[in-house]
């Protein structure tokens, strides 16, 4: 059906697009159209045709507008005459005054706006500081774009790639490839007792390094000659705080430090402390020439972190491609074929490398992105608040718009004014946000495990981005309200003809999205929590409870571990004790091995633990078939292996007992499998249980002693162990850790994610509720009269509360329906990184939804209860 009035309205709207038309002209033209239409009707044309003809006669808006434009004198600056001047200084002051009054008069709303936005911006600031720190890793090196780490994949190894390579590789690459300018290598320096006079301390922050380290990396020396500082054996370069500790105010250069009471190292250089944004850190460097190890020149012993400095313009891909050839020339093609060396850009290591044996645990880009997204969501919720409140309250400014328009303000000017006000509020929020961020930064840094500080003004791009975000957020949220406000027709508003807010659809949509975001965050935090609980509660296949791990820190304690064990076991509260070279929880080794019946290059990956005869008993592992290691079989000490069920499966040995394995790299000759262990989690639950092998190494390989304590007597037993320890190892201080805590630490980054998601969820809910509170207050205020009348006509308090709160419940319900699938799929993705996952229970979703609904309801009900209890006389008597 043709709707005539609608057609007229549309026609009028088309006219209004042209600025040349003022209200009076539009009225004139509309009348003209109506008259023409009437005439055509009386000539017998039907509705639609008459309207069409009439509108053709009157002319297209474009043509009419063009005609009007001719009437106007074009000013010198080509400004259209109906446009106000671009800048009116007199008005600027007026705008400020208006904004100031508005803020002063509506303190509550201003507070909600500013606080919400401030929380959002504070999140943004914290995450920006964190992201900035993460992205800054290793960027302080002048040659950062030309430094690459040499890493390799090893055939048959259980890892994807390893960060260390054998010692001779680096120098060979330097010699053979002209594109490589310099090579420098690092080897970990074992914990050592450092003494100088009265000062004695254990230090484990050392590295052996090539003299070229100062050429490749930017570690400027405060004193000493970088070219020769690490040349001679027994040379050491120390960091400033390390020097301070041992030398105080003395000049350390040329003086010596005693290591492990036997080695004298002479200080040849001092460097500033290594910046924390480095993927590896150290307190001191010892010349690599000092390094004594029989495998130094072994082409297959992977112990050297090797960094290449390429020549200007050399391509990393080109160099990487040639390294295999270098290895083949030096090791022979057969041996070299086991290795697939590759290069990693220095600046990619921190966020994008997760190789086996990284120098320090790296971060990863996914986590950084996750935090950025969470912060963005909180900011988004804050922006929606802002939009909602401002649009809802637009009505209170209708008169102002009317007056300004009547006085000649153009729509564009009003838009700019309101947008300006939004940005002003944005900057108020920014100031608050910076204060909040500054206060919470230490706690946040602690949580993230990073020394985070607010950047100074020299980091102007940071501040510029922040101001950009503030402007974008406040202008972005202000643009819609500005649009709504500036669209009021002055004739209408000044006559008071504007009825209640029409654009409730958008507001509802925004509230729904806010709650959807909150629910997604709540559910996500819940899933992470439940997974962590699942991980902690899971039967690991061994019992980590009451297991205390004591490090064996030197040769004497390692070989003497057996005696200590005997002493400790005299105490009835010590149930068992085992020495081992490595531990479950990620310490396992993986080297090439040779199982019976398998060709050399086809062996499945296999992990290894080097343990003593008491390990299985102490860790409460179960033997599936065969037997445990035993002192009754002396040959076990060098000629026996235990494997797990998974290993038997992988090696396709239905009858594994008696099958033989050799590990030439570890000087283990061919020996039989004497027992099969039930599968146990020797890694985190992120990984599927893989094949593993246990063997007994020579006693000097042992690095830890694990002691099982009786539950309920732990403090006194620990005290007993400490006393025994002091007799046994008088040099090193007593140190211990609990096995279950060590295992929990494997999930530190997940725990951190859970914590942060929880915080983000709380903030999103908080900010969302702030907004909701404001909206509820406003709409209740708007409906005061309605409520009064309802009550007079007999409405009950309950029905009024229902009336005011019902809508919110519906919106939160809808938000849940949107949020659940989103959260489900997002968290399913996250759970993929666990090989063993907690089932995602529907109850979690429902509870999160109920939580959001309850909070929302509590927020609005305060307003609705107050409104419904009010005496109708108060709201109606002035009518």
């Amino acid at each position, binding site marked *: 059906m043709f709707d005539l009035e609608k057609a007229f309205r549309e026609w009028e709207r088309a006219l209004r697009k042209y600025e040349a038309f003022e209200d009076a002209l539009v009225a004139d*033209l509309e*009348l*003209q159209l109506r008259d023409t239409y009437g005439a055509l009707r009386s000539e017998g044309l039907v509705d639609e045709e008459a309207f069409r003809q009439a509108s053709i006669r009157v002319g297209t808006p474009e*043509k009419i507008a063009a005609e*009007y434009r001719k009437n106007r004198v074009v000013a010198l600056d080509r400004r259209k005459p109906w446009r106000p001047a671009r800048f009116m200084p007199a008005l600027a002051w007026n705008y400020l005054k208006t904004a100031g009054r508005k803020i002063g008069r509506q303190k509550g709303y201003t507070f909600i706006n500013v606080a919400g936005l401030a929380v959002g911006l504070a999140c943004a600031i914290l995450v920006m500081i964190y992201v900035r720190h993460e992205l800054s890793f290793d960027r302080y090196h002048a040659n950062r774009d030309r430094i690459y780490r040499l890493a390799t994949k090893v055939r048959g190894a259980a890892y994807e790639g390893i960060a260390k390579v054998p010692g001779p590789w680096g120098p060979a690459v330097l010699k053979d490839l002209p594109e490589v300018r310099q090579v420098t290598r690092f080897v970990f320096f074992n914990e050592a007792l450092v003494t100088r006079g009265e000062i004695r301390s254990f230090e484990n922050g050392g590295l052996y390094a090539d003299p070229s380290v100062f050429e490749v990396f930017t570690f400027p020396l405060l004193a000493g000659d970088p070219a020769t500082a690490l040349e001679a054996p027994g040379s050491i370069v120390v960091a400033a705080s390390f020097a301070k500790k041992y030398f105080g105010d003395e000049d350390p250069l040329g003086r010596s430090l005693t290591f492990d009471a036997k080695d004298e190292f002479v200080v040849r250089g001092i460097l500033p402390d290594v910046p924390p944004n480095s993927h590896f850190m150290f307190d001191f460097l010892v010349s690599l020439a000092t390094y004594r190890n029989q495998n130094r020149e072994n082409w297959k012993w992977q112990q050297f972190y090797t960094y290449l400095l390429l020549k200007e313009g050399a391509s990393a891909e080109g160099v990487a491609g040639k390294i295999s050839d270098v290895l083949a020339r030096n090791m022979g093609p057969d041996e070299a074929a086991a290795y697939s060396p590759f290069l990693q850009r220095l600046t990619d290591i921190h966020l994008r490398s997760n190789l086996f044996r990284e120098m320090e645990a790296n971060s990863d880009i996914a986590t950084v992105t996750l935090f950025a997204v969470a912060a963005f969501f909180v900011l988004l919720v804050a922006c929606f608040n802002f939009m909602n409140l401002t649009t809802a309250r637009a009505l209170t400014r209708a008169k102002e718009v009317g007056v300004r328009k009547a006085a000649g303000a153009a729509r564009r000017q009003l838009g700019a004014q309101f947008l300006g006000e939004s940005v002003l509020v944005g900057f108020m929020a920014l100031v608050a946000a910076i204060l909040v961020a500054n206060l919470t930064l230490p706690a946040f840094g602690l949580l993230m495990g990073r020394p985070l500080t607010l950047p100074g003004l020299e980091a102007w791009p940071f501040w510029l981005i922040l101001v950009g975000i503030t402007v974008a957020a406040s202008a972005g949220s202000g643009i819609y309200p500005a649009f709504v406000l500036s669209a009021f027709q002055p004739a209408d508003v000044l006559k008071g003809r504007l009825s209640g807010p029409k654009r409730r659809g958008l507001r509802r949509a925004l509230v729904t999205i806010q709650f959807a975001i909150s629910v997604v965050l709540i559910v996500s935090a819940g899933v992470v929590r439940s997974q962590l609980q699942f991980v902690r509660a899971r039967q690991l296949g061994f019992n980590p409870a009451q297991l205390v791990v004591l490090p064996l820190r030197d040769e004497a304690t390692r070989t003497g571990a057996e005696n200590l064990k005997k002493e400790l076991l005299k105490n009835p509260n010590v149930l068992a004790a085992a020495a081992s070279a490595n531990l479950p929880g990620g310490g396992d080794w993986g080297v090439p091995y040779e199982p019976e019946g398998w060709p050399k290059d086809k062996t499945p990956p296999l992990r290894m633990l080097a343990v003593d005869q008491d390990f299985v008993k102490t860790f409460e592992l179960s033997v599936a078939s065969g037997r445990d290691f035993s002192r009754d079989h002396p040959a076990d000490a060098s000629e026996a292996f235990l494997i797990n069920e998974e290993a038997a499966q992988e090696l396709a040995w239905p009858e594994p007992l008696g099958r033989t394995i050799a590990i030439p790299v570890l000087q283990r000759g061919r020996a039989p499998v004497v027992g099969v262990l039930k599968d146990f989690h020797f890694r985190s639950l992120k990984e599927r249980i893989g094949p593993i092998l246990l063997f007994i190494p020579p006693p000097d390989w042992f690095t830890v002693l694990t002691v099982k304590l009786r539950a309920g007597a732990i403090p006194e037993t620990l005290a007993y162990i400490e006393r025994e320890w002091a007799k046994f190892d008088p040099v090193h201080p007593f140190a211990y850790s609990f096995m279950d805590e060590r295992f929990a630490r494997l999930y530190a980054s997940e725990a951190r994610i859970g914590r942060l998601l929880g915080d983000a969820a709380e903030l999103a809910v908080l900010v969302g509720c702030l907004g909701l509170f404001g909206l509820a207050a406003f709409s209740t205020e708007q409906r005061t009269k309605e409520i009064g009348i309802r009550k007079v006509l007999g409405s009950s308090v309950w029905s009024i509360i229902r009336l005011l709160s019902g809508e919110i419940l519906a919106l939160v319900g809808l938000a849940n329906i949107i949020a659940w699938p989103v959260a489900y799929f997002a968290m399913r993705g996250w759970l993929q990184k666990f090989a063993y996952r907690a089932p995602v229970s529907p109850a979690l979703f429902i509870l999160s939804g109920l939580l959001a609904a309850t909070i929302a309801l509590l927020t609005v009900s305060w307003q609705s209860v107050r409104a419904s209890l009010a005496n109708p006389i108060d709201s109606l008597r002035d009518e």
Partner: protein
Amino acid sequence: MISKQLMAASTRPIILAILARGEDYGYSIIQKVTNISGGSLEWTDGMLYPVLQRMEMDGLISSRWVASGGGRPRRYYRITGHGQKELETELAGWRSVWKALTKFSAPVPAED
């Protein structure tokens, strides 16, 4: 048909002439022009209003809103003193143009 140029040139004098007979409003002006010219002078309705506005700005005519019987108010235009003078000048101009034109287009006498 009348040329575009002539139409443009004649619009203002015709409006002044119509208004000289009395107050009137836009739609009615257009009707009158169409009727009197027998359809040969057909103004696009929308074009009239800008011209009226221009003339008002130039002080030739003035307008006021009059509430009509049942509904929307209409804008009525009337000629001003200045407009009267302008009309006289225009008429004089048009008359001399007309005179010249008819004179020249009359059949040429054999001897003149």
